[in-house]
């Protein structure tokens, strides 16, 4: 890192007012902090927190199914419905299962490639690999999902490639959803793990090797523990992005539905925002639970 010291020399003060403001600021860290926080906090609270709170409140409303007018008297009916009807439990479990599987697959796939990128590849190869990992992000999500539809179809490339091993295409269904989602979100998992690995000093692993640890042992006992926050950071992306998805499951999921579909059907097709909001509570609760659980690991600083 280089700081141009000649340029960093303080320029002569121009406006006295600006000068005074600046020294005021230097003297008052609290004021500085408030000024820094004011804009982003206002934005997040006004745009996001208010919107989320309003959504939660609307879960307590009902809707006139014919005129589509919302009845704003408070009732727990929607909440009762999503907690008692078995449909919502089944779909929620299915969705969490798919999201968890996607995350596991992504992490398992990301670890070796990220390790190769961070620790083995030359600087030049590393640069090319980062580009190679990032490029698929730019092909539209929808286009990629439809490409997988084609790959997994009856007589598609998957079947062709798998038949010599006596395997068949899984067809459209939850397996296809896991494959497609894992594929789409993979770059978002590779990148934080790669960055996390770069921060693990080579000397540490080498020292373990010198002391007689096998590569596998040093990997398990030294690298992985240091990598946990990065892995969790990556998992937040894959897990949450899968949790709310309804488009991929429409394209390759066969007749299955996930939480996103239930929300979408209710808000899009049935115009029932209150029930949709109540259903949306399920992923909200799951995600907030997950985030608070992992907050202590420092993962949130590694996203």
């Amino acid at each position, binding site marked *: 890192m280089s700081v141009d010291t000649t340029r960093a020399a303080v320029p002569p003060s121009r406006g006295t007012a600006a000068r005074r403001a*600046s020294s005021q600021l230097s003297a008052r860290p609290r004021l500085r902090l408030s000024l*820094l926080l004011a804009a982003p906090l206002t934005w997040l609270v006004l745009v996001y927190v208010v919107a989320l709170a*309003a959504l939660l409140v609307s879960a307590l409303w009902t809707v006139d199914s014919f005129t589509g007018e919302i009845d704003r008297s408070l009732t727990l009916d929607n909440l009762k419905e999503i907690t008692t009807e078995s449909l919502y439990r089944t779909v929620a479990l299915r969705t969490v299962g798919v999201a968890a599987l996607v995350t596991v697959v992504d992490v398992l796939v990301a670890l*070796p490639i990220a390790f190769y990128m961070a620790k083995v590849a030359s600087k030049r190869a590393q640069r090319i690999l980062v580009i190679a990992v990032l490029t698929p992000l730019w*092909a539209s999500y929808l286009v990629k999902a439809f490409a997988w539809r084609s790959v997994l179809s009856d007589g598609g490339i998957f079947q062709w490639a798998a038949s010599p091993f006596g395997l068949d295409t899984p067809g459209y269904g939850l397996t296809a959803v896991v494959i497609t989602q894992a594929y789409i979100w993979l770059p978002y998992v590779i990148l934080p793990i790669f*960055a996390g690995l770069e921060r693990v000093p080579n000397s540490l692993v080498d020292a373990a090797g010198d002391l007689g640890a096998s590569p596998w042992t040093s990997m398990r006992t030294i690298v992985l523990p240091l990598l946990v926050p990065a892995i969790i950071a990556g998992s937040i992306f894959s897990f949450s992005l899968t949790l709310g998805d309804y*488009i991929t499951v429409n394209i390759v999921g066969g007749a299955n539905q996930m939480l996103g579909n239930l929300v979408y059907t209710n808000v899009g097709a049935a115009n029932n*925002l209150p029930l949709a909001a109540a259903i949306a509570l399920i992923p909200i609760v799951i995600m907030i639970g997950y985030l608070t659980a992992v907050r202590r690991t420092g993962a949130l600083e590694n996203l």
Partner: protein
Amino acid sequence: MILSSTVRRVLVALTGLVLLVMYLPLVVVVINSFNPSRTLTWPPTGVTLEWWRRAWESEGARDAVVSSVEVAVASTVIALVLGTLMSLALQRYRFFGKSSVNLLVILPIALPGIVTGIALNNAFRGILGIQLGILTVIVAHATFCIVTVFNNVQARLRRMGGSFEEASADLGAGVWTTFRLVTFPQLRSALLAGGLLAFALSFDEIIVTTFTAGAGTTTLPIWILNNLFRPNQAPVVNVVAVVLILVSILPIWLAQKLSGDTEALR
């Protein structure tokens, strides 16, 4: 790092395999853009340039790319400003509720898009009574893009430490001068990386966009979705995707070159 050649070979093989799988569907997309079948079925029955011609002539696709770029640029700029402010506040100060603020920044990306989408839709239309349009999309995208900038800048600030800034202040530089001459130059590559990721995130976002875009606001993903439902347009979508992949390599490569260190692109 010292690794045995077997481990190296295994790693090379795995990396190659992962890349192969990553690019296989993209190859399918490229091939399908020359596939005469209107419905993207495999295997292709021949070769045609018809879809490329149509894509070239498609005003709708061009307009959609323009609005997507507008949205992505605007929301990236907002995210850059807000994300940087936020990370300076959180990394350089201690205050009550800090971890809650941290969580708040992450929430828009950590909660599923459909939740963010219906919440903002409801807020814009139901509470504020604003007409949905390109502005509402920008606001929505900026909200979930803040986190990518925030994370990159925060990581950089953490590694930088505060000693240079303190030195600058000790030498008599004002707050703004210190930021301009000391902090900002060190943040540049982190900002570039965060900005690029924010741009990518916004450019390809479909779910939140569906709920926040108004009449006549057609971003590229929305155009793609609409055209997949339109008779005989699906292959044109493939052409657009191929063009996007090709075009995207340039900014990524440039960013890599400019930032100088790969860490910047995480």
